[in-house]
């Protein structure tokens, strides 16, 4: 049982889909990262007959069609092989260095605060509190708020003259350091609830009689923690850490909406830099190289933690 060709019919469509829409684009951008891609717009003026609403040519009194000038634009993309030049450029580019720093600070600060705060909240909510289901439900809401909308929303909240946080006198979005703090705060707002929910689920997953039996055995809170609570919590902490890490390094939406990478380049993350390089300045090869650097960094982390991830998910 559970063999036969039909299993391929179940699995293969999804596999081919991923190959086509993930692996192929990745190969494409690897190829692009070894090239200097330039766009040139070639314009050509041609005379074409003027048409009326029905699509018939408009005629002059003498019977010849009226002509108009049409400009044909064609974008010619030129791919020039440059080897590792784009990757070499990365190491000498101050913008990249700054983006790496911004991304690293963001990831470390946001993930650390989210996990710590989430853990504290989970302990708080693990008590018998009146109205806990309602509070828990309200805490879920930020997780699913559209991130780019959250960015714009916090723009109105961080507004320095008359916004609800204006009284603090903090230059939330106009000072380079505070702007990064603001981005981090939005992420903390959105993702602390996720850490909290998962930790709470883990705490509540410890059976009550398990805890009671432990209390009969020992008076030491420390021992109960070490023997009962931590073994339940640690694997979950690892999972949450991995998931948050994987998401946080990609940070883009809030940067794009709240600070547009500024002031200056003070909040420009690697994703945002790659996006701007590729689709605003159309330096496709270099943008691909930046994206690949981020990809390689993520892949290194995944490889190092592969055994851990495998034991959780497989």
């Amino acid at each position, binding site marked *: 049982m*559970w*063999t036969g060709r*039909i*299993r391929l019919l*179940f*699995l293969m*469509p*999804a*596999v081919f889909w991923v190959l086509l*829409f*993930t692996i192929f684009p990745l190969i*494409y*951008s690897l190829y692009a990262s070894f090239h200097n891609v330039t766009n040139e717009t070639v314009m050509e003026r041609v005379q074409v007959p003027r048409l009326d609403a029905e699509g018939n040519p408009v005629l002059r009194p003498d019977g010849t069609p009226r002509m108009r000038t049409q400009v044909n634009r064609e974008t010619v993309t030129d791919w020039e092989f440059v080897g590792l030049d784009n990757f070499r450029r990365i190491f000498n580019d101050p913008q990249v260095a700054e983006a790496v720093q911004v991304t690293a600070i963001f990831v470390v600060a946001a993930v650390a605060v989210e996990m710590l705060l989430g853990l504290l*909240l989970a302990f*708080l909510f693990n008590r*018998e*509190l*009146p109205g806990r289901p309602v*509070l828990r*439900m*309200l*805490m*879920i*809401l*930020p997780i*699913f708020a*559209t991130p*780019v*909308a*959250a960015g*714009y*929303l*916090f723009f109105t*909240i961080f507004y320095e003259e*008359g916004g*609800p946080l204006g009284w603090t006198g903090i230059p939330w979005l106009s000072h380079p350091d505070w702007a990064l703090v603001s981005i981090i705060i939005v992420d903390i*707002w959105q993702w602390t609830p*996720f850490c909290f*929910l*998962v930790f709470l689920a*883990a705490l509540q*997953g410890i059976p009550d009689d398990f805890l009671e039996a432990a209390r009969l055995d020992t008076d030491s809170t420390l021992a109960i923690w070490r023997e009962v609570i931590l073994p339940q919590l640690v694997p979950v902490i690892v*999972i*949450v850490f991995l998931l948050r890490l994987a998401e946080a*390094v*990609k940070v883009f*939406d809030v940067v*794009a*909406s709240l600070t547009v990478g500024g002031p200056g380049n003070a909040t420009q993350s690697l*994703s945002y830099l790659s*996006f701007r390089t590729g689709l605003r300045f159309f330096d496709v090869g270099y*943008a*691909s190289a930046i*994206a690949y650097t981020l990809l390689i960094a*993520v892949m290194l982390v995944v490889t190092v933690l592969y055994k851990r*991830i*495998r034991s*959780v*998910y*497989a």
Partner: protein
Amino acid sequence: MPDLPSNRRAGIANILWSLLAIAITLVFIFPLYWAVSTALRNPVDTFTVAGIGLPWLDFQPTLDNIKTELSTPEGLRALRTSLLVTVSAVALALGLGLPAAYALARFRFWSNADITIWFLSQRVLPPVATLIPFYLTFRAVGMLDTPWALILVNATFILPFVVVILRQTFLDLPRELEEAALVDGASYLGAFFRVALPLAMPAVASTGLIIFAFAWNEFLFASSLGITETKTMPAHMAGAVDTRGVQFWFMATRALIAMVPPVLLALFAQRYIVRGLTLGAVKG
């Protein structure tokens, strides 16, 4: 009654903990409340409202902003595009992912674990790494600014969720039921559609809601591939700020309209949220 004081102390402590929990929840809810409060104001009141801007107390609320926003052709089109793209992407991802999830839970391949992790690893990829290839390819085949482009990329992004979460769901179902059906002469397709799928339905529906929220919220590709005709709500928001400048009431109103569908729908999946967001690793 010797332990009354300690009882009372415990009671007071409990009240304090409750108040703390309520206060923290209010802090987390405040930005959403602020969106509602700003959206309900007359534009002239935007900055003049005192305190925390309670409707009726601090200002006379009006639905004008929301009505205006929902009556512009661009706003309606963005909502329609978002709905079309998101629903199609969810349907596509479920159609492809459900059988794969089932296959990885039941059939034996060379290494089910590694194939599952391979699907999972797609989630870890930074989307910018595939943005430029998608952009150039769609431009070359004339699919830029069509709903198809957005449906394809969104389905790709949410497919790993479907495979990994629902594989776990199928693993948790007893395989004996399907095996009994197989012994009775059902085909594997029959066992999947008639036995396993109905049992997995609550999890499938919840997963559907969660991936709906993710696809709805997607911004990077939505703003890059949908240029004029196919702006989804998130892309529509961003465009408005560029052309209109900083008009807080519209920002808040649009943010609110963009956020309401995913947030409300996700509430229906409450019971599965922990499982869904950890891709099946933690049972909520």
